[in-house]
C-alpha cells in the first residue's frame, strides 16, 4: 500500500513539473530571459576585471567569490564530520 502511494505521489510530481517545464522559455534560444545583461557583462568584462580568460573561474573566484568560500567550508565541514564519525581511535594523537 505504501509503495502504491509513493508511486502515485512521484508520478503526480513528475506531471506537475512537466507542466511547469512546458511553459518555460524554450531551450537554446539566444533571446531567453536568462541571457540578459548580467551574463553579457560577465562575458565582456571578465578578462578586464579579473584577468582570467576562463570566464567561469573568473565568476567563481572573483565575482561570486563568497559562494566559493562558503562552499569550500562545506567541504571542510564534511571532512570534519566524517572524521568525527568514523575515526577509529577517536583521539588525534595515536
Amino acid at each position, binding site marked *: 500500500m505504501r509503495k502504491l502511494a509513493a508511486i502515485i505521489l512521484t508520478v503526480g510530481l513528475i506531471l506537475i513539473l512537466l507542466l511547469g517545464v512546458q511553459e518555460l522559455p524554450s531551450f537554446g534560444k539566444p533571446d531567453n*530571459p536568462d541571457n*540578459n545583461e*548580467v551574463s553579457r557583462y560577465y562575458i565582456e568584462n571578465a578578462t578586464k576585471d579579473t584577468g582570467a580568460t576562463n570566464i567561469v573561474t573568473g565568476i567563481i573566484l572573483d*565575482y561570486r567569490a563568497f559562494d566559493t568560500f562558503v562552499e569550500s567550508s562545506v567541504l571542510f*565541514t564534511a571532512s570534519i564530520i566524517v572524521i568525527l564519525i568514523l575515526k577509529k581511535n577517536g583521539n588525534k*594523537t595515536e
Partner: protein
Amino acid sequence: MIIKSFPLVTILVLFISAFIMPLIKDGKLVKTISLASMFLGLILSLTTAFYVIKYGKFYYRIGHFSAPMGIEFYIGNIEAVMGILFTFVSLMIIWYSVYSIDREIISSKISLYYLLINILIGSLLGVIFTNDLFNAFVFIEVGTLASCGIIVVKDKKDNIKATLKYLIMSCLGSGLVLMGIAFIYSITGQLNITFIHKELLSVYHQYPRAILISLSLFTVGLGVKSAMFPLHTWLPDAHSSAPSSSSAILSALVLKAFVLLLIKVLYRAFGMDIITEFPVLNIILILGSVGMIMGSVFAIFQRQIKRVIAYSSVAQMGYVFLGIGLGTDLGVAIAVFHMVGHAVTKSALFLAVGAMIEKTGSKELKGLRGIGKEMPATSALFLLGALSMVGIPVLPGFASKWNLALASIEVDKILIIGIILVSSLLNAVYYFPIIINGFFGEENLKDKIYKSKSKPIKELLPIFCLIFAMIYAGFSSGSIINFIKNGIV
C-alpha cells in the same frame, strides 16, 4: 563607513575562528575561542543594529562588484533584530555548554563540536543577511551539514538513526529549494532578490504555472527544513537524542533561519501582489493552524520530557507559519516577533531540561517527579519558560498570541482566534503536569531532600540571562513589533 561591513566581519570571524579549532588539542582553549568569537559577533551585531536604527536599512556589496554582478547583503530592521537574537542566544548556549559538554561527549571530540557550532551559527547568520538566492542555498547547505554534525557527535544508536533521517529529509528539502532557484533563474535571469522582484513584476503574466511551481517548491523545501506540520517527522527524534546544548541550538535557532528565508523569498523576491494571486498563503495558513493543534496533541502523549518540548517546537512553528499565512505586514511582523520570543524561551527550556536530566539521570517524565524540591532554581526557570509558552500576559508568548488574534480580526478570519485558544489550552495540558508534579503532590516530594541535586549557580547563569531576556522581550513587545513592521518590504 566601516560599520556597514560588520555583518560580513561577524560571519568571517565565526568561520575563520572555526577553522583554527581542529589544530588545538586542549578543550579549554577551544571553548575560550568559541566564546570570544561569539561575544565579538554579539558586539558587532549590536553596533549594526544601532546603525540601522539611526540611518535605516542598507545594502552591502561583497567584493568589488555591485548588485546583479556580485553578491550583496541586505541589512534591514528584521536582519538587525535577528542578528542580535542569534548571536545572543548562541552565546548563552555556548556559555552553558562550557560546563555541561564534558559529561556528554568524549573529550577528543569537543574541539570538533565547537567547530561545528561556530560554522552553524555563521551559516545561519549568512542565511539571514544575504540578498542573493544561490548564496542563501549554499549557506543552507553548510547549516544542514553542521546541524546534522552536532546531533551525531554523541555517537549513540538512536543518535545515528535520527541524524540519518534528518539528513535525508533535509537533502530532499535543499534539492527542492535548488529546483525552485533554477525555475526562478530561468524566468528572470537574476539571482539577486531585489532584481528578481523587479523582473518578476514585468514577466509574471507569461509564466503563471512556472511561478506557482517555484512557489510551492520553495514552500515545501524550506518547510521540510523548518518543521512545517506534515514534514516535521524528523524533528522529535533529532532534538530529543542530541546533547542538550545542541538540541537547544537546533530548536531555537536552526528552524528560525529557514523560516526567515521563506519570508524573504515570499515577501521580497515574489512580493505581496504576486503571491496574493496564488493560493500559497492560504495553504501555509492551513498548515500552520493544523500544526499548532496537532503538534500540541502529539506532545501530550509523549513520555520523555525532551520529546514533549520538541513537539512543542513544532506547535510554536505553527504559530510562525500562521503569521506568515495571514498575508499582511502585521502578520509577518508578529511571526518574526514570535520567532524572537520562542527562540529565547525554547533555548532556556531545553537547557533547564538538560540540567534536570543530567542531575536525575532519567529522561522519563515519571523520573522528574518532585524535581521542584531537589532542583528549585532550575525548575523555577523551567516554570517561567513554560508560562511564556502557555501565554501568561506579561511574557512574549502572550504578546504574539494577542497580536496574532488582532491581525486575524483585521483580515476577518475569525476562526483563527478559536484555533489560537485551543492550542493555548493544549499547551497548558502538557506543560502544567510537569510543573505540578515537580513542585506539589505529597507522594512526589516524599523522600526528596531539599536542594540535593541543584546545579551550582554559575552553571545556571546562562539560563537566567535567557529568561531575563525573555521577560524584557515580553515587556517591550509593542516597540519590537513596530520596529520589525517597517522593515519587511
